[in-house]
């Protein structure tokens, strides 16, 4: 990134890049919050890709709305009119997905793919008709494919900001029932929530996000704003309410930062920039998230290996067997359990005796509790004190006799 560009991005991030750009960045941020939070309900309902069909189904609506407005004598570029048209055809697409997967043997994924491609194809036909209407300029309908915020009109920016704020309000107002339905639809139904209505509101929210996002993110990539934040949030938490909040934050951040970068580099289509910002946050979460991240998993695996080597090393010491494995020797040495020449230290002998006792107690315990869950807890690492009570251990010790001494 060049010096001037990064300067311009910082300027846009601080809302210094002009009134319109600031409004668009705020609108994109609000849209991102609504998309992230709304998308996480969809994600939890395992219907993430339905939104892709909804998004692609907006195109014929945009084209038809433009043609109707031209026929009525206006120049056809009014954003509210185009958005209304897109909402209508998106509703038709959503209804068809539902109808095909309910009424025929085709699975939902086939219905999604069919609606998506056919509506989009029909939309392209309409766009080529509009191109040949002799009006030369196409009212920038191509901008709806990939999003473009360059040269956006003031009232359009207001519509996006207000629409984003409204969508966030709906998420806030409906978060309880939507969370319940998303988490466990049957339980929600049993506790008196009308699941179908909540599902409808959820889809309406997705549709609103799609329609508002048409101008900013574009219809091909808006699905990313609904899915990526939710999937990202999944790496950070196992709790539904936190998932929704984190997804909202990720989406808002991606929308805001992406719109700011795009304001500084107007040649770039806005949608891909926002999506790549979201993907960068996702990538960072995939690698560095505390529990599910790749790094955390690798560390966990390493710790586990070291524990296994330590335990097996101690047992070998206790039995007086030579240790040949390099990693085991390193582990024992670093813990101060053996001296550099491989002879056990005082501490090492004590711990070896403890490990051996633990092993013998386990052996006995697995005989006594053969048919109980406790026998399954044996993994060669868990100390028996964590599983059995002192009384039970005393009983085991009575059977096997006390700890055996480990000689150096």
């Amino acid at each position, binding site marked *: 990134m060049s010096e001037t560009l990064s300067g311009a991005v910082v300027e846009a991030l601080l809302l210094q890049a002009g009134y319109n750009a600031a409004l668009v960045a705020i609108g994109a941020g609000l849209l991102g919050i609504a998309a992230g939070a709304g998308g996480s309900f969809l994600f939890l309902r395992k219907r993430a890709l339905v939104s892709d069909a909804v998004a692609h189904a907006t195109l014929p609506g945009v084209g038809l709305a433009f043609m109707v407005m031209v026929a009525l004598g206006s120049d056809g570029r009014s954003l509210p009119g185009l958005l209304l048209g897109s909402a209508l055809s998106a509703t038709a697409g959503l209804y068809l997905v539902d109808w095909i997967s309910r009424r025929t043997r*085709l699975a939902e*994924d086939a219905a999604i793919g069919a609606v998506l491609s056919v509506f989009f194809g029909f*939309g392209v036909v309409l766009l080529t008709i509009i191109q*040949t209407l002799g009006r030369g300029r196409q009212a920038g309908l191509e901008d709806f494919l990939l999003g473009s915020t360059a040269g956006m009109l003031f009232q359009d920016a207001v519509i996006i900001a207000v629409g984003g704020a409204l969508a966030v309000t709906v998420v806030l107002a409906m978060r309880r029932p939507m969370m319940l339905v998303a988490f466990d639809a049957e339980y929600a139904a049993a506790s008196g929530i009308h699941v179908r209505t909540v599902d409808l509101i959820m889809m309406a929210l997705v549709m609103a996000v799609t329609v508002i996002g048409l101008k900013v993110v574009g219809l091909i990539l808006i699905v990313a704003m609904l899915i990526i934040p939710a999937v990202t949030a999944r790496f950070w938490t196992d709790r539904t309410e936190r998932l929704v909040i984190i997804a909202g934050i990720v989406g808002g951040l991606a929308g805001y930062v992406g719109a700011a970068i795009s304001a500084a580099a107007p040649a770039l289509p806005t949608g891909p920039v926002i999506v790549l910002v979201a993907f960068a946050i996702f990538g960072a979460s995939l690698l560095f998230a505390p529990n599910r991240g790749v790094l955390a998993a690798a560390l966990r695996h390493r710790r586990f290996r070291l524990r296994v080597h330590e335990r097996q090393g101690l047992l070998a010491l206790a039995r007086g067997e030579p240790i040949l494995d390099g990693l085991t020797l390193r582990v024992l040495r670093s813990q101060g359990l053996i001296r550099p020449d491989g002879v056990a230290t005082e501490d090492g002998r004590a711990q070896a005796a403890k490990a051996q006792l633990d092993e013998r107690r386990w052996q006995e315990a697995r005989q006594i509790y053969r048919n109980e869950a406790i026998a399954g807890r044996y993994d060669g690492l868990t100390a028996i004190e964590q599983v059995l009570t002192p009384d039970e251990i005393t009983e085991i010790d009575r059977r096997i006799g006390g700890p055996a001494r480990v000689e150096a």
Partner: protein
Amino acid sequence: MGNEFVQFSLTPLLIGILAAVACALPGNFLILRRQALIGDAISHVVLPGIVVAFLLTGTVASLSMLLGAAGAAIVAVVLIEAVKRLGRIEPGAAMGVVFTAMFAGGVLLLEQTDTSTVHLDVEHALMGNLESLVWFQAQGWQSLTDPAALAAVPPELPRIASVCLAMAVLMVVFWRPLKLSTFDEGFASAMGIPTAVLSFGLVVAAAVAAVASFDAVGSIIVIAMFICPPAAARLMTDRLETQIWWSVAFAVASAVCGYVLAGYGPLWFGGQHAVSAAGMIATVSGVILGLACLFGPRRQGAGMVRAEG
């Protein structure tokens, strides 16, 4: 007709038909395996692959494009698996994350690259340009036997023809294992069929069909042809063999009707210009699917099938 038809319509029509069939054949299995959206994902990730291939070689030669796109498809499959396993994310969402991000990357790369000298832009990638694949050297039907004129057919035609043939041959060769593993994966692997390899092979075959058709007709047709003709065929019959024939028939019908409607339809309504053939072919395939949904003899399926839905 005659001369003008051969010159301007024969090759695009043939390319459209072959592309439709090449996608519909693997599409039959994708539909039955509930992997219909793989076609959607592939047609998106092909874009970055093609752009990277162009950046590396500086040409739009077909082989490098094909390799780039196939590479991108493999990267996508690996990434989707990684997201699915590492995050324990459901496959649909994992796919959504990967293909949108790769498509976004492809668009940005394309916008940053100077492609003014070659025919490579986002709109072309989405919508294709079937109408431009004309055969200028043709003088009429007799050109079909004239080697000099035949040497000048658009290179897309032999390419998509060989891919279409390859799809048919692969399907015949692997018919039994493919059918078994599609309907009962557990039984197939008990019979010693390497189902994982077969499944990956199917995705790669779909990717090759997508890339070859994508080059000629754009990604809308690719997605529509992967799904609509096989889905409509599925509503006509319970037998896989019959379903394949139906899907081929629907694919050909979509391509022919779509092309003719796009080229001549506007003239019937007093228009001056043709509309997008790729878009019209997708639309016609949707109409066929709609009719099959309403009237197809097997639209409801057996009780077992309903229970899954």
